[in-house]
C-alpha cells in the first residue's frame, strides 16, 4: 500500500476537488462536502490530508517517517488554520516574506496578515522546496494539483530563477488529461 500526503485547502467544493484527484481510486461515497470528513475517511486509506500550509509544513517536518510515498500539493494555501500561527511559520514569514514583528499589536496584526497573504499565493512551492531541497524527497513523487492555471507562466519563471529543473505541467486542456 502506498501512502500519500495531500496538502489541499478545498477552497472550492471539497467534494468536487477530492473526486477530481482521487475519483479513480475511491468510491463516490468517499467524496462529501465537509473537508474534515474527507480528511478523516481518507486517512483510513493511507491518504493524509492537511488543510493549510502550517499543518502541511508540520506534517512534513515530523511525519515523513510515516513512510509517505507520494505528495500532492496545492499551490495556493492559507498560511494557517483556526488554531493560529505557530513559530515555524512566523520564522518563515520573517525570512522570506519581509515580515518584521512590530511593537504595536494592531500594526503587527496587519503586517502579519499582509505577509500571510503573500505567502498564500506560493505556499505550495515552499513545501516543495522543503521536501526536495532539505529532506531529499524524490521530486518525481511530488504532484502539484492547482486550480490556478493562470499562474503556469509564473511557475515556470520561478523554477527558472531558482535554477531548479522545471516539473512537467499538465493542464486541464491537455488531451492526455482529458
Amino acid at each position, binding site marked *: 500500500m502506498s501512502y500519500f500526503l495531500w496538502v489541499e485547502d478545498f477552497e472550492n467544493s471539497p467534494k468536487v476537488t477530492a473526486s477530481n484527484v482521487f475519483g479513480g481510486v475511491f468510491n463516490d461515497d468517499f467524496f462529501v*462536502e*465537509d473537508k*474534515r*470528513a474527507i*480528511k*478523516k475517511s481518507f486517512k483510513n486509506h493511507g491518504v493524509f490530508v492537511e*488543510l493549510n500550509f502550517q*499543518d502541511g509544513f508540520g506534517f512534513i517536518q515530523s511525519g515523513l517517517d510515516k513512510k509517505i510515498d507520494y505528495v500532492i500539493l496545492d499551490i495556493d494555501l*492559507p*498560511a*494557517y*488554520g*483556526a*488554531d*493560529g*500561527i505557530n513559530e515555524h511559520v512566523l520564522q518563515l514569514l520573517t525570512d522570506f516574506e519581509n515580515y518584521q514583528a512590530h511593537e504595536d*499589536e*494592531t500594526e503587527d*496584526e*496587519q503586517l*502579519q*496578515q499582509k505577509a*500571510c497573504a503573500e505567502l498564500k499565493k506560493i505556499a505550495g512551492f515552499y513545501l516543495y522546496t522543503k521536501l526536495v531541497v532539505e529532506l531529499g524527497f524524490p521530486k518525481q513523487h511530488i504532484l502539484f494539483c492547482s486550480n490556478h492555471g493562470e499562474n503556469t507562466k509564473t511557475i515556470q519563471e520561478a523554477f527558472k530563477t531558482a535554477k531548479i529543473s522545471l516539473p512537467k505541467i499538465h493542464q486541464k486542456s491537455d488531451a492526455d488529461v482529458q
Partner: protein
Amino acid sequence: MTENTTRIQADMEKQVNECDAQRQFELALKYVSASEENPELALKWLRQSAENGYAEAQFTLGLFYLLNSHRRLASILMRWWVYDISDQAKTGTVDSSKLLIYCLIIQLIVNRSGRVELNTSAAIENPNAIYGFPGNASAIKNSLQIDNVPNDESAVFWLERANQQNNIEAASWLKQCYQDGINVIPSENIILMRLHEAYLTGESGFAKNEDIAFACLKEVADYSEDDVLAGEASYILAENCFEEKRYRTGLGYLRAAIQFENAQAKQRLEKAYLSFTFSEFCNRDDAKQCYQYAYNWLSERLKNDTSSIELNFALGVLLAFGKGIKQDKMGALKCFGIYVEDALDSIDGPNALKCFADIYVKIFGNNDKKLEIIDDVGLYFSSEYINNKGNQNYFVLPSLVFDFYDDINLARDFNRRLEKAKGIFHANSIQRELEWKQKYAEFEVRRTKELEEIMSMFAHKFRSPLDAIIYNTTHDNQPALYAEAAQTMRGLLDVFSIISTDEIVLKERLKQDNQGNSNLMAVFGATLDMIMLHLLSVSGSEKIQQHYMAYAKAQGLCDADVSYKIWNDDFFELEHELQNEWQQAYAHLLAESANLATRLHWLEQRFFKLELKGFDSADIHFKEHGITASFLTILLNEILVNAFKYYSSKDKQPVTLQWLERDGYQVLSCRNPSTKSERVAQKGSGRGHTFLSALARKTGSVFSKPKPQDDFVLEFAIANELLI
C-alpha cells in the same frame, strides 16, 4: 444744350417747382445722371422736394447730410452701395435714395476734392469699372466738408420729418443716431458700433450685410480715440475671427482689445489659457480648490525639476491669472520667458506651449513684436473649444490630473479622454508621457481589483437569499419566503447594477426614495433572518465555527480545553448536529412568525447578545424592497455577518448595533468584541471592507474601517440628504 431745350427745361422746372414734390425728387435724380450731371442742381431739387413734404426726399436729404458730416461712415457705405446699386440696376429696381446719395457724394465731394476721377454712370452700369475704389473711400473720408451742406442737426431734422410720414428707413436711421432716446446724435464711433449691430442682424431698414457690419467695427477698432469703444470693437472682431478660424488675425485683435483694457478680452484670454493648461479643472464648480491643488502640486514638483518646460508653463498660467496663488504678472512672464528663450531650441518647430507663452509675453511684456501663432493654438481661443470641449484637448500635465483624481472611475474616464487627445509631447516630454502611462496602469490594476471586489461581493450577498430559498425548498416550502428572497435579490441586483454603471443615479434614487411603509427596523429584521439562514446552513458553518465550539463547551458536550484543531479533527460530527439543529430551530421561529425580541433572545442563547440602539427612533422611511432598503440590506448584511464571523468574548460581551445622527450624517455603527485568534482565522478575504469603501466613495458616505483590536468599531455614515 440748345436754347429751345433750355426753355423747355425751365418751363418743366417751373411746373415742377410749383406743384409736384415727387417730380422734384425725380428731377434731382435726373441731374446726377451721366448725361445731365449737375450735382448742385440735383441738391437744389432734392431740398425743394423735401420742403414740399415728399418723404423719400426728406429721408434722402437727411441721410446725405448725415453722411456728409460723418465721412468715415460714408466711406464704408459707399464701398458697398456701389455694388447694391449695380445689382439693382440690372433688375430695374434701383433704390432711388441710395443712388441719389451715392452720386451726390461722389460728384460733390470726391470729384470736387480732385482726388479721384470717377465716371458715376459707368459705376452704376458696371461696378467693375470703378477702378481704384478703395482710394475713393479714403478720399471721402479725408475730404473737407463742403461749406454749404448742413450738419447733423439738419440731418436729424429731415430724418424726423420723413419718420413722421412713416418712412421706415428714416425711422431705422434715427434709431441709430439717437442716443438712448435722447435727441442728441452720438459720436461717430457709437453710430458705427450701432450700425455694426444693425447690419449684422438685419434690423428693420437694414439689409443684413456682415461685410458692412464688420467694416464699421474695424473702423472703430483701428481709428477710434475712445479706448473703451476701440476695446469693445476689437474684442468683437477677435471673436468673429476666431469663429471663422482666422486665428492669427483674431489674436491680433484680442491683443489690441486687452491693451485697451477690455474686460471680456481679458476673460477670453484667461479662459483659453486655463482650458488649454487645466482642461480638467476649469469648468468645475470647485475649480478654485482644483487650482489650489495644482499650485501646491507644481510647487512640490518644481523643487526637484526646476527646468521642466511643462511645470514652468503651468505655473506661469496660474500666476498670470491669479489661480491658486495671488496674481503675479512678472512671475508669469518669468515662467513663460524661460520657456520662450531657453526651451525653444530644443523643440522642433513651433508648438502649442511656445505659442501660448509667446502670446502672453508679447501682450504683457511690452513686446511689440508680431505674435507667432499656429492654428492649433488659435483653436483654443474659439468659443467652440472653451465652451464645448471635444476630442481636440491637449493635456499639459496628465500626471497632475491622475494625482488629483484619487478615484478609479474618474481616472479611467480621464484616460479615455487622454487617449483621444492630440499629444503635445515632444522629445523632452517623453518622460512625462511615460509617467502618466505608468500612473494609468496603476489605476487600471486598482480598477480591475475593485471590479473583482464588486463581483465577489455581488456573488457573496446573493448567498444569503439563495440559502434561504434552498432551505425552504427542502423544508417548509413557504411561498412568502420565496417571494421575500426573490425581492431581496432583485433589490441587490438593482444596487449592484447602478453602482457599476452610474453612481450619480444611485445617489439620486436614494434621495427620491424617502417615502413608504418600510423603515430601519423592518430592514434589520429581514436582513437578520436572511443572514441567519445563510450562516446556519452547511456552507456557512465554517464562518461561525467558534460559536458551535463555545456552545458545546458550555453545555459540556466536549472538554473545555479542546483546541480548534481537535475540534475539527474529532468533533466535526457534533458541529454538524448543532448546525442542523440550529438551522431547523431558527427556521421554525420564522415559520411561527416569532417577533424580533424572541429571535434575538434565541440568538443570545447560542451566539451573543445583540443590542440595538436608535433603530426604532430613526425617522427614516422608504419603499419596501426599494433602492434604500436594498442599500441598507447590503450594509447590514456585511456588518452583521462580520459580527458573527469575528465575535469572541470570554465574558459574553454584547455586540452593539447603533443608528445615530451626527454632523449631517446618519451613522450606522457596530461595536464588536473580538480576539486576535478570531480575526486572523482567515475567514474572509478582506474584500468586504474594500467593498464598503467603494460603496462609501460612490455614495459620498464615510466608511471608517475598523482597526484590528479586541473591541473593534465599524462606522458607515450616510449623508442626511440621501435618507431624509
